[in-house]
């Protein structure tokens, strides 16, 4: 067995997840079939997305049960090897167990984390939302919600929108009360903002006076909050909550100031905490950056579609471990920036602002998408907004932060599960067409489930080729950022991943879901040539190969390597935009003593 054929991980009977097939030959000479990340990061997100119901009226509790069931069913189906494997045979790529594998996976966003853990039956939908929102308002440790320390994106838009959808459809009073109480800390509408504004002509509020706790007499009751001066003014009373967190409810008023601005014919307001009261470290510099970001992004967005009325709110909720959210309200769009954003550089800060305004743009421009659950179209909503923000601020590079996570979960995952990392797809399209054509392409999409969305893509002429070419460029790491730098997507098998099999066999390129890619490495014994035979792909599916060490892509040749002692590793990329999962295989026969 060559070094590159080392088998790692647990044996098949323990893991029980591999989908590769092969048959053992008599002479026992090994081929290797390396499938780098395959099932190790088999996407629970895509399962979740697939079963996320299109009708908003369908209770999400039912959806959660369905997600969990289908997630289990998908595992049960795809995890069964297609041919029998003797226990003495070295096994194909080892995989993590479903539970550990999914919960330990990196998540792209809070929404993706919710979908993963719900599909994994760690939470029901309501409990997941309750916990996640509690973490966002500081009532629960973030570590309780996130199994991994970092997310690829701290945009809370998708999570908040999904929670709102859930509450709109779920009639359970307990859910409305528990989830709603946390949601109130994160959301508000224009009327609320107006109500919190300092009255015109009113003197600026003074800081809340902190006085020592009083020493109470024997017949006095303890005060509710000795931290604040009990003889405070109305401002102080109204702004107590504001000082502690974000102003909420009818009692918290007069704590905000607003500045009117205008860009490209669009008037907007930037709401800030009254600086004299507690500035929460928002400064004039931040407000200038916001204006710069909007004046740069707005012309770009307006040239491509619609941007609704929007405002920007500098929030004071320090507990929210997020950077920003876009509240998609019926009366306009509210872009909320949280104090964590203050850690960003100027350009990155502006890019995040541009991304949030682009969220407003997506909502207003693509009516069909806006009417469906956020989760089912988050790859377009978040991905396109992220891409457009990088066009506005090419050197901000905020979008690049999702690449590391994406590379852990991209294998066999439908593009519809890529969330904000789907910017890579739009970035690739930008190298092939202009932005207006990208918008037209998105505008032609429809459907709620990933298969429906894939079908709508498949209806477009040439999209199967385009998606396949995207997969090849992605695998090669040949997609360029707006700034011109290469996106770090180049494929590499995990160290030691792989398994040795015999010199004759049928190698499954594994199941490729709709709108997904699958990369595999076939390793021929170094002193042999092999006959390869691949069946014609199904509709919407395309398979290409090239020498792992480099070279150009092409169909799978019948003889590999073309000469003795050339690169004996063949990289195979299979893509599928058909509605059904695509499974194929390559028959391999070694030629004895050719070299």
């Amino acid at each position, binding site marked *: 067995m060559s070094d590159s054929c080392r088998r790692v991980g647990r044996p098949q009977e323990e893991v029980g997840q591999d989908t590769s097939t092969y048959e053992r030959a008599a002479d026992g000479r090994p081929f290797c079939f390396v499938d780098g990340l395959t099932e190790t990061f088999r996407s629970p997100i895509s399962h979740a997305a697939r079963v996320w119901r299109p009708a908003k009226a369908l209770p999400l509790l039912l959806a959660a049960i369905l997600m969990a069931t289908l997630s289990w069913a998908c595992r049960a189906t795809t995890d069964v090897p297609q041919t029998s494997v003797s226990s003495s045979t070295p096994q194909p790529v080892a995989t993590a167990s479903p539970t550990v594998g999914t919960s330990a996976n990196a998540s792209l966003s809070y929404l993706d984390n919710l979908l993963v853990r719900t599909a994994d039956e760690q939470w029901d939908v309501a409990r997941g939302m309750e916990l996640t929102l509690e973490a966002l308002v500081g009532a629960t440790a973030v570590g309780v919600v996130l199994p991994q320390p970092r997310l690829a994106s701290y945009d809370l838009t998708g999570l908040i929108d999904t929670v709102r959808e859930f509450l709109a459809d779920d009639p359970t009073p307990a859910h409305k009360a528990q989830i709603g109480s946390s949601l109130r800390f994160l959301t508000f509408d224009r009327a609320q903002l107006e109500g919190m504004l300092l009255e015109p002509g009113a003197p600026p509020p003074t800081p809340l006076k902190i006085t020592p706790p009083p020493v109470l007499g024997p*017949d006095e009751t303890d005060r509710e909050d000795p931290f604040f001066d009990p003889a405070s003014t109305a401002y102080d009373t109204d702004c107590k909550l504001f000082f502690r967190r974000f102003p909420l409810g009818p009692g918290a008023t007069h704590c905000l100031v607003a500045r009117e601005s205008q860009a490209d014919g669009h008037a907007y307001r930037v709401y800030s905490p009254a600086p004299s009261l507690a500035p929460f470290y928002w400064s004039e510099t931040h407000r200038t950056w916001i204006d710069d970001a909007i004046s740069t992004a707005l012309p770009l967005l307006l040239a491509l579609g619609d941007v609704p009325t929007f405002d920007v709110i500098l929030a004071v909720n320090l507990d929210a471990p997020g950077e920003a959210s876009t509240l998609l309200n019926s009366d306009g769009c509210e872009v909320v920036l949280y104090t964590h954003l203050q*850690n960003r550089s100027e350009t990155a800060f502006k890019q995040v602002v541009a991304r949030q305004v682009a969220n407003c743009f997506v909502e207003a421009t693509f009516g069909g998408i806006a009417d469906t659950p956020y989760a089912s179209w988050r790859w377009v909503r978040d991905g396109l907004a992220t891409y457009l923000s990088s066009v506005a601020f090419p050197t901000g590079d905020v979008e690049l932060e999702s690449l590391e996570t994406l590379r852990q979960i991209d294998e066999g995952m439908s593009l519809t599960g890529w969330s904000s990392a789907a910017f890579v797809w739009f970035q690739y399209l930008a190298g092939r067409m202009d932005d207006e054509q990208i918008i037209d392409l998105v505008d032609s999409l429809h459907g709620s489930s990933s298969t429906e969305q894939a079908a709508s893509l498949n209806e477009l002429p040439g999209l199967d080729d385009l998606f396949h070419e995207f997969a090849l460029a992605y695998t090669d790491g040949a997609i360029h950022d707006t700034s011109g730098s290469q996106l770090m997507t180049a494929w590499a098998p995990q160290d030691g991943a792989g398994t040795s099999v015999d010199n004759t066999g049928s190698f499954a390129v594994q199941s490729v879901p709709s709108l997904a890619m699958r990369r595999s490495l076939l390793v021929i014994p170094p002193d042999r040539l092999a006959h390869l035979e691949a069946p014609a792909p199904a509709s919407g599916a395309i398979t290409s190969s090239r020498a792992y060490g480099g070279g150009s892509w092409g169909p799978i040749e019948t003889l590999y390597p073309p000469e003795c002692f050339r690169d004996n590793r063949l990289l195979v990329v299979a893509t599928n935009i058909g509605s059904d999962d695509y499974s194929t295989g390559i028959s391999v026969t070694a030629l004895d003593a050719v070299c």
Partner: protein
Amino acid sequence: MRGSRSARLLAMAAVLIVGSIGAGSVVANRIGDDEGCSPGFWKNNTGAWQEYDPASRLDSVFTIPAALSELADDSLLAALSFNGGPATIDKAKLLLHHAVAAVLNAASEDVGYPYRRFGPPLGIVAAVNAALAGGNPDTMLDLKDILDEANNLGCPIAADESGGPKKK
């Protein structure tokens, strides 16, 4: 300087019981007497620390806002050496200088400190977090003054350079 801690607690419990019977209301929100050790004492007597480790990070005790994130990984011991200055972050450092001493006082079984860490009176941690969060330097200095006064009520622990602290 003062009676033993157990005697004081006993006396306080008696007051609470009598008060409850007599007035039917809460009678006290001070949990100790008027004792408090200064930041300088805690800096020089780490052997007297209870519950806290001098090397622990500030953000393990307090919530440090993003704008003050450069302070987050400073140790509790380092905070006891913080100085002031003109910027908002300097006011925050002044507050933290006394806030660390305050939590050490409140955590110590040997100090009858007037404030609690996690509840009334004051709720030191929440109060400090709120003051840091708001970013208003005046608010920070207000709270600093309150803690400063309490931290200088008088230290019942004898400084002992060679070994651990001894009760006076």
